[in-house]
């Protein structure tokens, strides 16, 4: 008997005329690892919430069809009983943790289940041990890293010993290393403990290969499902972008048997291409040496900048950095490396304890005049912090008014460019997360800045939204605007940035051409770079790989076929 059986499920959120789920039919077998992918607003999260019994219980709305858990109608199941069997981990750890301390948080669900004291103690101890959370014991949740917080959220669900765990984009707030750790943990739970896993994710290169089965959703429907290989092949045929780069490359090169991991991809490439041995002794060059002509001098320059909060540990340590007009710079690094602080210093929101900031050749110091003229735009991690006016249009007028700048058609022009024109009279808080972010971006771009600083703009975005944003930022660069993006999304950085900076412990440890840095890095590299390493250098994206390797593979394949025939 399947653990979940969904029959003809349709669902409308309250006051919505468009169905969030439309005629869904899917079964999930016991011990299976199901990955659900799809664009923003495709219904992935709603499906996850339905399996967890939160839709329609928590949200209300119109519900039809049946969701069965081991043959039992989920809507008729007692909430306590359902929570014992199905656990759910949400996207943002900050918004699902209730207590101030880790151990108490893990026990929260157990308290709600009314378990005896001894049983709670045993389960908390077991889970903390299994997830290696001893370090977090007794510490304030507030002081833990994002990865640890998400682990606590998982621990709190695991302690309830559910048979199925549903995870809604659990790694979207984590850096690549923490995300990798977290996903490996989920795989362990599936393989070693036999837990059924339903995972919703956007960054497919991290998890596509972990799944037993993948379901792709669009407009509230499941449009394709099967093994990762089947979905990869089928997606290419149907033009669906939700497959990892390795699979996209091989499908694009005309292979019928599509690999989904770097390992599988390399073993296929070995049949077609000789492995070059020229990278064994290569040393990563640090220090930016870009020969691009720079007639106008730097947009912003940081000279030996040191910064610490409240005289505690230095967050930035002797940063030397110049960003030139038209440059697209990606700033990478682990959580706590100082990336966001660096961006705030560049935005003039934090003053360095030591060192100098020059904007357009003029020292800024504590003088905020430069920023008050709207020459620097800064988009923080949370676009909601920008939205408080009644309409989208008013958000932009608010910024213009503060800088005493005339409209002169700027608002309409920008709304058009960011595809927000149809929402201009709507309340920004009524829009989707992707649209909200575009409104926030528009609210700072309306002053036509020379430097645009964005902190984690691709968090939780699907492929299409990322491509739109990347394209728009690239257009800005063409117009001479400097763009600096703090991101954990290496694939995005490889696609759009021309220069990459890696920060570690407040220092710049690598600064150079994106190809050079991402191509030579072991961890901050794209899936394609890892796959092509040793076969061809300077490949970061699927398109580059297809351009360089595609014809070679095609010729080698044709020669092999000829020899076979001969």
């Amino acid at each position, binding site marked *: 008997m399947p653990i979940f059986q969904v029959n003809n499920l349709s669902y409308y959120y309250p006051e919505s005329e468009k169905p969030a789920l439309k005629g869904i039919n899917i079964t999930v077998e016991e011990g299976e690892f199901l990955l659900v992918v799809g664009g923003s607003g495709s219904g992935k999260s709603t499906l996850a919430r339905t399996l967890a019994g*939160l839709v329609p*219980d928590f949200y209300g709305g119109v519900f039809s069809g049946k969701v069965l858990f081991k043959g039992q109608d989920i809507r008729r199941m007692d909430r306590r009983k359902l929570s014992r069997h199905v656990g759910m981990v*949400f996207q943002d750890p900050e918004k699902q943790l209730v207590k101030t301390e880790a151990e*108490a948080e893990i026990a*929260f669900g157990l*308290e709600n289940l009314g378990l005896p004291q001894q049983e709670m103690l045993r389960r908390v101890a077991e889970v903390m041990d299994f997830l290696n959370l001893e370090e977090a014991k007794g510490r*304030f949740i507030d002081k833990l890293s994002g990865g640890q917080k998400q682990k606590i959220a998982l621990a709190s669900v695991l302690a309830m010993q559910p048979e199925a765990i549903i995870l809604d984009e659990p790694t979207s707030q984590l850096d690549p290393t923490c995300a990798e750790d977290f996903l490996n943990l989920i795989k362990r739970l599936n393989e070693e403990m036999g837990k059924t896993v339903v995972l919703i994710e956007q960054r497919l290169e991290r998890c596509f290969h972990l799944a037993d089965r993948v379901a792709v959703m669009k407009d509230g429907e499941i449009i394709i499902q099967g093994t990762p290989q089947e979905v990869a092949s089928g997606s290419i045929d149907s033009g669906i972008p939700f497959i990892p780069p390795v699979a996209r490359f091989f499908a694009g090169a005309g292979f019928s048997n599509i690999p989904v991991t770097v390992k599988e991809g390399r073993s296929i490439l070995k049949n077609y291409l000789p492995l070059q041995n020229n990278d064994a002794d290569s040393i990563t060059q640090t220090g930016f040496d870009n020969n691009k002509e720079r007639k106008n001098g730097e947009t912003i320059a940081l000279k030996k900048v040191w910064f610490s909060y409240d005289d505690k540990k230095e967050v930035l340590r002797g940063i030397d950095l110049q960003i030139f007009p038209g440059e697209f710079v990606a700033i990478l690094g682990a959580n706590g490396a100082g990336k966001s602080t660096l961006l705030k210093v560049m935005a003039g929101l934090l003053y360095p304890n030591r060192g100098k900031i020059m904007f357009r050749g003029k020292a800024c110091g504590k003088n905020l005049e430069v*920023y008050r003229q709207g020459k620097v735009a800064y988009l923080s991690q949370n676009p*909601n*912090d920008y939205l408080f006016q009644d309409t989208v249009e008013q958000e932009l007028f608010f910024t213009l008014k503060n800088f005493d700048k005339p409209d002169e058609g700027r608002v309409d022009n920008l709304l058009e460019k960011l595809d927000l024109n149809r929402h201009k009279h709507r309340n920004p808080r009524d829009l989707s997360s992707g649209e909200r972010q575009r409104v926030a971006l528009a609210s700072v771009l309306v002053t036509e800045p020379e430097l645009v600083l964005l902190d984690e703009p691709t968090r939780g975005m699907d492929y299409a939204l990322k491509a739109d944003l990347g394209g728009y930022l690239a257009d800005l660069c063409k117009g001479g605007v400097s763009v600096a993006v703090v991101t954990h999304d290496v694939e995005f950085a490889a696609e759009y940035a021309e220069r990459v900076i890696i920060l570690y412990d407040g220092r710049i440890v690598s600064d150079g051409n994106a190809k050079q840095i991402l191509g030579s890095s072991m961890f901050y590299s794209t899936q394609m770079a890892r796959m092509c390493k040793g076969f061809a250098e300077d490949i970061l994206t699927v398109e580059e790989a297809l351009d360089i390797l595609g014809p070679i593979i095609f010729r080698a394949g044709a020669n092999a076929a000829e020899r076979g025939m001969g």
Partner: protein
Amino acid sequence: MLEELFYQEKELFLQKLHPAAAMLHICTLLVLSLIFTNPLYLVGIFLCTGLSVYALEGLQTWKLFIKGGLLMTVPIMIINPLVSRAGATILWHGPRLPVFGKITVSLEAVFYGAVMSMRLLDVISIFCLYNIMVHPDKALNILERFAFKSALVLSLATRMFPAMIRHLENIKQVQVVRGVDFSTGSFRQKLDKYTNLIYILLLSSLEDSMEMAEAMQARAFGSGRRMCYVRDVFKPEDFICAASSMTALFVGALGAVKGYGVMNFYPYLGSVYSMGDIYLLAFMLAMLSVPTLLSWGWHRCRYFR
């Protein structure tokens, strides 16, 4: 700086006390500061609280609390002498004012204002002690058994408050980037700018609260009778601290009933102390200092462990 106002785990003896023992100590200080009106007693409680704060390495935090407290005491010390008519020893005859009538300042009213200010500083210091001594989760664990929902709301507020302060700072930075200058403009304009910050914070908090409620429901919250997870063991030192606090409370309450530690202010000031007062105060302070003494011994003398 604001983070100093909240509990920080320092692995100190007083922080490791069982929450029941710690709460009993704090409640005793609070009750005694409210039942006594004798300034000697109030100063004694203030010093005793200060000693505990010192043992908790919280002098910096206490300074912040006291600064805020002193600001509140100023109006008390000014307004009480101006409006009180009960004192007989007139120090100053002022003009006749509308609503207040003829202004007179009496010695008793000044003294009463000063004593009440002292009491306010006591209460603020005790609140500071609570903040740096008792882990909020542990304190709420005790309350949970009697009023779970209220305890949960308090727990959430405790967790959210520092996060909200940080969030407010982020929102302010975003507004600065959008051209809002918080240092310029009239009072009304500044008020409008700060109102926007609160408005954004409220909007976001409302949205976040829905997500949190959903996560709580997913973990069976509200599904029936719940149990309370207890980790703390009542150790001998907890017993000693609890016993000393209860003794101080009992003796203090008995003394107050017998008239010790209670001072008459109007129409004439009563006696500040008698020998009975001194003995009672000394005994009470000795009892109230037991946790601090144990803390001192715990860190410096192996026989205490």
